């Protein structure tokens, strides 16, 4: 019997479609259900920080190589490189629950989790509301509701206090890269941080997390301050970059502040530190220009 190519392709498409729909069904069934004893693998540094902040660090049995805060986290075995997940290493940690950000969670095959009886908690953390929701949901997984609620209250009060400190309106841009220039868009953690610090993101109207821009686009938004987030120890290279930039555009109309503070990149329990860092950068810049902060 001969099989026509069209029929073969249709059969193949049907099989693939079926496989995909089964995969989706498996993912849809994932929900955090607390079971004791809980053994957690965290696949995101900010989720690891949240677990430690609600004093659930002792439940961690696996982390990514980038989960390096607080210091105790580094004693937890590494099961993932951060970008790609090593399923075998992950299963060897014998977790009951995996907590991950949505992008990474999609890499883990649902059928394997189902067979191993592992719960997958996937979340998105890009705003303050996301932090509160995630802390709340993690607290139910770890049975640390009281600790988490206390932490949320403490963070909320801290943010309210800091809100009162903001004096004059500041327009700022956050940059994550130099060549090309990459700025924090309206749906980024950077945008949320600026909002929490009482600062206007000049790219808040963008519906993207990060956007590629050129210097001219940056100038057209008239920021007072450009916060350049750099890697630890990369200040010298960044200063070289801005020195050359100022040679190209002698009076860009904005000041530049460099920061390598990790909390600026991690939406999590160190949100107050991040807001303080933004205020510190603004104050330093105001002092340099002889203005009242």
């Amino acid at each position, binding site marked *: 019997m001969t099989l026509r190519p069209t029929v073969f392709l249709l059969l193949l498409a049907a099989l693939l479609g079926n496989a995909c729909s089964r995969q989706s069904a498996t993912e849809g069934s994932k929900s955090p259900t607390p079971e004791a004893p809980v053994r957690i693998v965290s696949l995101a540094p900010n989720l690891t920080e949240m677990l430690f902040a609600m004093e659930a660090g002792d439940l961690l049995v696996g982390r990514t190589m*980038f989960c390096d805060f607080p210091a105790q986290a580094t004693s937890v075995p590494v099961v993932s*490189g*951060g*970008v*790609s997940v090593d399923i075998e290493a992950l299963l060897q940690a014998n977790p009951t629950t995996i907590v991950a950000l949505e992008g990474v969670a999609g890499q883990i095959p649902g059928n394997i989790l189902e067979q191993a009886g592992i719960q997958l908690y996937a979340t998105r953390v890009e705003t303050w509301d996301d932090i509160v929701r995630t802390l709340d949901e993690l607290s139910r997984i770890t049975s640390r509701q009281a600790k988490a609620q206390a932490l949320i209250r403490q963070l909320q009060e801290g943010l309210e206090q800091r809100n009162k400190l903001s004096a004059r309106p500041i327009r700022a841009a956050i940059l*994550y*890269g*130099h*060549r*090309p*220039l*990459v700025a924090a*868009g309206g749906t980024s953690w950077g945008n949320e941080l600026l909002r929490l610090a009482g600062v206007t993101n000049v790219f808040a109207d*963008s*519906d*993207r997390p*990060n*956007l*590629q*821009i*050129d*210097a*001219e*686009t*940056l*100038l*057209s938004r008239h920021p007072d301050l450009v916060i350049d*987030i*750099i*890697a*630890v*120890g*990369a*200040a*010298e*290279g*960044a200063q*070289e*970059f*801005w020195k*050359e*930039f100022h*040679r*190209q*555009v*002698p*009076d*860009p*109309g904005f000041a530049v502040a460099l920061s390598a503070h990790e909390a600026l*990149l991690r939406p999590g329990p160190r949100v107050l530190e991040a807001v303080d860092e933004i205020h510190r950068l603004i104050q330093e810049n105001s002092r340099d220009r002889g203005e009242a902060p």
Partner: protein
Amino acid sequence: MTRRWTGRTALWVALLALGLLALLALYVLVGSGGAGNGPLLNPELLERHQAILRGLRLRRGLLAILVGAALSVSGAGFQALLRNPLADPFVTGVSGGAAVGGTLVMVLTAFLTQTLGASLTGPAGVFAGAFVGAVVVALLLSRLATAGGLLNTNSLLLMGVVFNFFASAVVLFLKAIIQGTKLSEILFWLMGTLAVEGLPDALLWLAGTLVLLSTGGLILLARRINLVSLGEETAWGAGVNPESVKRWLFLLSSVLVALGVSLAGFVGFVGLVIPHVVRILAGSDHRGVFPLSALGGATFLLLADLVARLSFPLAGTQLPVGVVTAFVGGPLFIVLLARAQAKGGGA
């Protein structure tokens, strides 16, 4: 001695040169909004306006011209060397060497800054790493593809393709061990970017000089390349050593790819499409193909970058210029190929 250019080639050179100048003027005058058009009349804004025109737009335009010319001429060079119309600057492994060199510098920068607090200079370091990587690979492949003093272009092509696979694996490995902002920097560089912010003038001058010298060298070599493309026996008969011609052709084309990738990452289709268009317009005499490819590549990339720069309000982000060249170059190449086939010949 035969006449250097036919009337048609001379006409196209003049037209493209004028078109390039006109396009550069438009490129400098039109922007994403930072300069606007009013400030020319406002003395307070004039200084910043001039800085945007000269410091940003003109420099970026010149970078686009340099990279476009380099990639296009190297494409024409590799197509002549390999006698394969599908050859492009990224097929011989030289670009893979540049990718590994540039990415390695970025990763080392991150590693050194995190562990030792040391720092490699940004764009200049990446340029140097990519250029050295490309040249080392070019020399290595040239040595490996030589047997009994003869450069085997088939081996060169095969080794180049294989090396590119190896290079992509190395780049993937480097991307896997790096995180955060450095990762996105690598991705953006590999996608192709003509960002000039922070790029030292000395680097542009150096690259510009090398592009001019290499293109000039290929133009000087063009008559001999014509003879070699007719067959090596014909070349020997005319007193031309084809081995020497092939080596120079490979070396100069490799230097141009190294410069193009080092300055702007992977900007596709310029080196593939433009030489084809040039041959359709003005014939396959390399004395015309090289200068017209330089002008055509420069014009094409300048236009593509103008679109990329102006894409911000529509796309919400500035498109990488490599995306624009691929959107235009891909369909254009297929149309050219289809038309050539319909006429019963190759492009």
